[in-house]
């Protein structure tokens, strides 16, 4: 057992791992989403700017061709941004030599750049440039022919505005996504906890089995955990079986020896002589050993048995009935308790063994009257079962009572076969963590006060 516990270590937490894993992925996914969104937005804005510039370019070209005079005052664009100086929105009409024929009113203090390179399929040149004030512009230029001359129409739009919009959008997006991220993280933490809840329940249920409140793991579990619960129950079952088998085999051996011992003892008892004496002495020893080791085997098997409980009232009633038959001259009175009495936490046969021996002793030593009372006692931490068995016999002196109950004297240190069946009683009471006190009874004889552990009232009520 020690080796197995040494192998069991605590490391990490499923809840924490689940949380950190999902939180990590969330951060990566949300940051990527943020960048993707702002990129899409900026592309959309850029496309829309290009469309707007194309439209203005075509309008200007149309106006020049219509008026037939590139210097005409009638050439203008309705968009007010072309009237604001330094707006980044400019237009101009010039020829290949750079001679200006017409300008938007926004062109103040700057020269519109001349574009080089071959035009595209529609006869246009496009570029991104910076004006004298450091404003980024998208520039579109087109050549038109007004025979015999050719002119170039240039329109620019403000790109910096768009970049700024994208910047703002990105800021807002990250705030929103950050908030979403935090919410999702909280959610995943909650989910992880909820997911772990059945495990906590299982652990409680196993704990209840260990403390003897139930015989098996009970409850409803999700499919992932149910097999574990079933395995635990299976383990408990097979453990009980192994113990039961070991108990039975020890029992069979010891009980099997009893008949031959009885035969030897009777045979020797009926004869005289040294041989008969030796056989008698040795069979007594053997019989003592058999009962000692039988008791010890029972005790050893007992400590490992969990989840058992017994109704003390039933046991006492049954024993009272039996005593009436074995000791017909003794009036055994059983006072049933007023209210409900908690159940004994342990094996029914053990409770029967403890109270049976005490009751039998009381009947043997009584002068015709034995009284049994059952009740419970509320202690500081737990409720214990209180069973009082008293008789009107001679009783024990204080000194003798102490001797009988001497503490720390264990069954295995004693001469086998000594005592009045109190050895096994004491040992059992010790195993269960109970107590046995011998006092003077008001009836005149001995009062045996027995305190034993109970199962919690809630689980006793379940049935």
């Amino acid at each position, binding site marked *: 057992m020690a080796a197995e516990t040494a192998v069991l270590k605590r490391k990490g937490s499923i809840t924490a791992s689940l949380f950190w894993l999902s939180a990590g992925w969330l951060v990566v996914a949300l940051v990527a989403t943020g960048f993707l969104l702002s990129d899409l937005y900026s592309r959309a804005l850029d496309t829309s700017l290009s469309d707007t510039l194309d439209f203005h370019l075509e309008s200007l070209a149309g106006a020049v061709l219509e008026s037939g005079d590139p210097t005409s005052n009638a050439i203008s664009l309705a968009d007010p941004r072309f009237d604001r100086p330094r707006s980044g929105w400019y237009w101009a009409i010039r020829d290949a030599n750079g001679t200006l024929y017409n300008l938007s009113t926004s062109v103040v203090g700057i020269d519109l750049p001349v574009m080089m390179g071959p035009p595209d399929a529609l006869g246009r040149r496009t570029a991104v440039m910076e004006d004298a004030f450091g404003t980024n512009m998208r520039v579109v230029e087109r050549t038109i022919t007004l025979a015999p001359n050719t002119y170039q129409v240039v329109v620019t739009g403000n790109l910096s505005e768009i970049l700024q919009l994208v910047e703002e959008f990105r800021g807002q997006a990250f705030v929103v996504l950050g908030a979403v991220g935090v919410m999702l993280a909280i959610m995943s933490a909650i989910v992880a906890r909820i997911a772990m809840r059945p495990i906590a329940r299982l652990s409680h249920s196993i704990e209840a089995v260990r403390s003897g409140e139930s015989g098996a793991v009970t409850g409803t579990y999700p499919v992932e955990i149910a097999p574990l619960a079933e395995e635990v129950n299976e383990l408990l079952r097979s453990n009980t079986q192994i113990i039961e088998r070991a108990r039975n085999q020890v*029992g069979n051996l*010891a*009980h*099997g020896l*009893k*008949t*031959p*011992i*009885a*035969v030897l*003892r*009777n*045979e020797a*008892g*009926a004869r005289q002589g040294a041989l008969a004496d030796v056989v008698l002495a040795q*069979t007594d020893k053997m*019989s003592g050993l058999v*009962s000692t080791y039988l008791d010890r085997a029972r005790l050893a098997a007992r400590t490992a048995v969990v989840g058992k409980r017994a109704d003390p009232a039933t046991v006492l009633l*049954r*024993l009272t*009935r*039996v005593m009436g*038959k*074995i000791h*017909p001259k003794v009036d055994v009175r059983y006072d049933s308790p007023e209210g409900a009495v908690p159940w004994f936490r342990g094996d*029914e*046969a053990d409770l*029967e*063994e403890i*109270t*049976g*021996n005490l009751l*039998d002793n009381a009947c043997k030593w009584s002068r015709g009257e034995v009284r049994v009372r059952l009740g419970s006692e509320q202690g500081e931490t737990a409720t214990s079962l209180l069973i009082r068995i008293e008789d009107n016999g001679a009783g024990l002196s204080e000194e003798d009572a102490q001797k009988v109950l001497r503490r720390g004297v264990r069954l295995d240190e004693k001469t086998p076969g000594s005592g009045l069946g109190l050895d096994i009683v004491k040992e059992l009471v010790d195993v269960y963590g109970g107590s046995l006190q011998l006092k003077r009874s008001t009836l005149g004889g001995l009062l045996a006060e027995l305190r034993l552990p109970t199962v919690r009232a809630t689980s006793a009520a379940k049935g």
Partner: protein
Amino acid sequence: MRILVVEDDTSLNRQLKDALTDAGYAVDVAFDGEEGHYLGETEPYDAVVLDIGLPQMDGLSVLESWRRQGKTMPVLLLTARDRWSDKVQGIDAGADDYVAKPFHMEEVLARLRALVRRAAGLASNEITAGAVRLDVRSGRVTVDGQAVKLTSHELRLLSYLMHHKGKVISRTELTEHLYDQDFDRDSNTIEVFVGRLRKKLPEDCIQTVRGLGYQIAED
């Protein structure tokens, strides 16, 4: 008094038979559950010593079956299982007392005596009828304090009549309860024993009830 011993261990069976015979009982024996069950069902025993661990039919089943049929003879259980839970089971099956192996023969005899006495409704180990006094523990008989020597058959006869003091006991009943099943049952022998007993006891102690049987009168 006629006793049935059901015990599968041959040595123990023989020891019980010897000890019980020495104590003045007529003893029948059986070595397995079925045989024991049959005997208990058909023969009128005054008590039974029954082992629990028996081949073919275990002792508790035998006992339960007897009790279901209304057989009320006292039964002393003999068993290696001596936990209280086992004892409770035995008593609940209808046993009257319980002796755990390995036992001292004296204990079996004492318990058996007590059972027989209880079944006869007697409170003490000594039964008196007029001047005649019988100590059932030792089998000693005194008349006015003077010891009387009786043979085992005479003692058995007197003991049975005294246990059933005040009742008329037929010759058949006496035959059934005084001899084991192997005994050559000739009802004349009863008359012979009664005649011998009468010579050793006060004259009017054992009365003959014509056509019915014998009786020892209540004081």
